[in-house]
């Protein structure tokens, strides 16, 4: 049996807004094996992004156990979490989240800087990454000088910078038209073929169908009705 890169048991997330508590995740169980391509689906507000943020170590659960590569994440320090985000996981956001003042080149360079990759290697790596997502000619463009699809490809190049094993994407095509969205999906499939583990939130049925497995969420819980499909 393949090794579980992601293991979640009864993961909970409780948000507090003023005096009001809200349980966005009420006990999620999830296993992701090495090299899988998984789609996470569910109605709006069901907790998909919350789950994904916890998975990507961008946020911490308020209950349950989360193991990444068999190591419990719940108790890690903020620096350890930062290093995981830097090297182990590449995160792709629906809203791209590029630095607005920086060029495509510079945006892709950021994770490499924090990984202390030396100058020359950094340059090579950025060129290679941007070529891989088909943006070799847009290196000097700032986000405002690119299309949505191009911005998302820069974000993907950035997510791949330190060759993470896991790529997490929260509706990566949500802000794109179907044509550029299709190109992005194709990129993810290529990444999957190259051996990366990919977890992707999507509202798009056709994309979900291409996944090996679909995880359904409903009201912060696993929706078992369709899980075994």
């Amino acid at each position, binding site marked *: 049996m393949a090794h579980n890169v992601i293991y979640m048991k009864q993961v909970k997330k409780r948000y507090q807004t003023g005096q009001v508590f809200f349980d966005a995740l009420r006990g999620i169980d999830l296993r992701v094996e090495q090299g899988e391509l998984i789609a996470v689906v569910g109605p709006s507000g069901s907790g998909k992004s919350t789950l994904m943020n916890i998975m990507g170590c*961008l946020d911490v659960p308020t209950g349950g156990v989360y193991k990444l590569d068999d190591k419990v994440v719940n108790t890690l320090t903020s620096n350890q979490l930062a290093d995981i985000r830097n090297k182990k996981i590449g995160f792709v956001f629906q809203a791209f*989240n590029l630095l607005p003042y920086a060029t495509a080149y510079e945006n892709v360079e950021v994770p490499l800087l*924090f990984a202390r990759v030396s100058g020359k290697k950094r340059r090579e790596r950025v060129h290679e990454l941007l070529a891989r997502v088909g943006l070799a000619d847009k290196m000097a463009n700032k986000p405002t000088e690119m299309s949505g699809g191009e911005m998302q490809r820069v974000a993907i190049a950035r997510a791949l910078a330190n060759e993470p094993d896991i790529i997490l994407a929260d509706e990566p095509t949500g802000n794109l038209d179907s044509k550029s969205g299709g190109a992005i999906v194709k990129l993810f499939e290529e990444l999957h073929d190259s051996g990366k583990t990919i977890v992707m939130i999507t509202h798009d049925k056709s994309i979900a169908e291409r996944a090996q497995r679909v995880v359904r969420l409903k009201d912060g819980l696993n929706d078992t009705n369709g899980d075994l499909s």
Partner: protein
Amino acid sequence: MNLTTIYNVFIRDFRKQKKRITLTVIALGWGTISIMVMLAFGEGLHRQLMQNKRGLGEGIGILWGGQTQIPYKGMGKGRPIRFTSEDVEFIEQRVPNISLISGEMHRWGARVRYKDNVLSEHITGIGPEFEHMRAHIPERGSRMINELDMQLRRRVVFLGDEMKANLFGEEDAVGKTVFIDEIPFTVVGVMKHKMQMSNYSGHDLSKGSIPLTTFEAIYGRRYLGNIVYQAHDLDRMADIEKQLYSVLGAKFQFDPEDESALSIWDVVAGMKEMSNILLGIQIFLGIIGGLTLIIAGVGVANIMYVSIKERTREIGIKMAVGARRGYILVQFLLEALIITFGGGIGGILISYVLTEGFRRMPIESDVLDFMGRPVLSPEIGVTVVIILGAVGIVAGLFPAMRAASVSPVESLRYE
């Protein structure tokens, strides 16, 4: 933490955000300059006024004899009261709280000659007490009339600086002989230039002073023009005035209630008004400085505040791709320090150049004599920089620290 990483990230972002950083530096520098330069002029004016106020002398009173208005002990009114040098001694013995006292005689229109240069001048007979009492400070290498001059009735003269210039021009005067009403006098001293805001017999700079005893002898005078005295303690001026009336009333047989028998100018009372003006100026400058500081602070805070949303997201993004908290904090701290020091030191330097330039401008004018030259206060500069820096840090660094201490998701979601 890795220094090259800090350096790389910092330099890169610093270059990228030049516009914002330059604006903040300018706001901070400008605030510093305006406050420093303004307060420098204020301080210059203040010092000049303080100095000018001392021109006539500090804590002095001028006493003239008057005319009785109230009949007293069978004597009618309208009797003139006139003082001689003995009365000066009498007052000194009888009236406590007087530290220095001297009689003074005047001769206007004396013929003063040096070589072919003839002037019609104001000559006074005074005592050595004038040096301290009436700020007759001799220039370097010269002296005021002294006690021995008085005893020996020496024919020596102490020249006001303007009179010296009129008589001698650039030439050295000390040791030279001038003729006063065709009697030869040796110049022993020239008065150091001073600003004199008030006077009772003309400005000291255009007078020539000789020993009172000599004056009495050569002009055959007995009665003094006036008496000048200085109080031990400024608060005692009113007491002294009262005692003068009673002591002199007894001696000259006039009613101590008879105000017109004497005429006294209490210079201290006038000075108090002056001190209030000075205090007023300082309060005024303080308020303006404070307001300017607030405006500059708002400017700095505003620039910082406007970029909080953008910067919080920036922090969220960086942390999402693996920046450790420490890197973020060091970056923002460095930036805050560079802005504060850049703007602060720049502002202080420019203020220095501006005020120093103004100080060195070779203009002679009465306005400048009155207004003085700006005096820069490094303390004020440093205080302003610290305050503006603190404002910038509160407005810019604290949100950054907050953003670095929460989860990246929260920073990314910041609106």
